[in-house]
């Protein structure tokens, strides 16, 4: 399978990766925000500001994806990253199977 690299799809792939990472960081921020709220360490005003800011970030991300036409690309990058993490966890949990798979690949 030959990979056809041109300026357009390179930019697309790179942008997709950047947005995928931005989404992952955003998810971590949301998670942290919820913990702070549940930990009762924030005032009502702070919660309101935090919620609105996160919502703005969501909307900005969606807009970028729409304008650049990379929604599917970002989805598939995140799925790919999920698969890599899954695979890695599998190998940690079951090293014997990893050895067998490597042997199969090299055969």
């Amino acid at each position, binding site marked *: *399978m*030959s990979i056809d690299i041109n300026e357009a799809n390179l930019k697309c792939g790179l942008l997709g990766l950047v947005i995928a990472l931005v989404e992952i960081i955003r998810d971590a921020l*949301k998670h942290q*925000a*919820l913990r702070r*709220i549940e930990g009762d360490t924030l005032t*009502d005003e702070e*919660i*309101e*500001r*935090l*919620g*609105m*800011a*996160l*919502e703005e970030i969501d909307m900005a991300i969606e807009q970028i994806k729409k304008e650049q036409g990379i929604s599917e690309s970002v989805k598939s990058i995140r*799925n790919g990253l999920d698969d890599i993490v899954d695979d890695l966890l599998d190998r940690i949990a079951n090293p014997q199977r990893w050895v067998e798979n490597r042997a199969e690949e090299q*055969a």
Partner: protein
Amino acid sequence: MNARYLYCIVDGNKAINFGRTGIDNKKVYTIPFKDLSAVVHDCPSAPYKSEDSEKVKSWIITHEKVVEAAWKKFGTILPFGFDTIIIGDKNGNAEKNVKRWLKNDYKRLRLKLDKFKGKAEFGVQIFLHPEIIAKSIAEGDPEIKKLEAEIRAKSRGFAYMYKQKLGIILRKQMELEAEKYFNDFYEKIKKTVIEIKVEKTKKPEEGKQMLMNLSCLLLRDKAKDLGAELEKIKNKKEFFVRFTGPWPPYSFV
């Protein structure tokens, strides 16, 4: 052509020529030993590799077609996966090596063949519609209803944070529901089959999420019992069922 590409082992020792139906139009034929045979074609001693995924796909399809034909002809077979090759020894005699392998493994192969008499593999994939399940969970859960009411009442920033909380709770509940369904369906399906293998679930497709992916070994004429059980699941609006087969018992060799 110092090696033999192996398609399957069959129950029977009639010398059969399948013609040029093999990969790369190779002649497919049987090498018998006692009351069973290997279905092969002559090939070089290297595995079939290619960068062209279309080519590899067509090889695999050809492999499966030959195995199907052997299954039709002989009734009971042990199918091998794509690219199983037996190489010749240093004197170049692959046929001898095949016979030697059949001789050494005869007991095990014979036992397996007997195990598969009259049986076939069926694939069961059960999908769920996440939104339908989410809706019924939301309707039945007072904590969720309370959250939904708060979201409607609060200001924008608060509403957003509560929405995130709702999302997390809903996802957790859905996971629990999915696990319940998985176990329930698994037990019910297990009762209708002889052997069952849980395969990896694939990525979601068009709004459906794969709940379970099973390979089932059962008697061919018992397939309707499995079908009946799946019909009950199919009738629930939350689920979609894909029931495939009969296949040669690839997953159980």
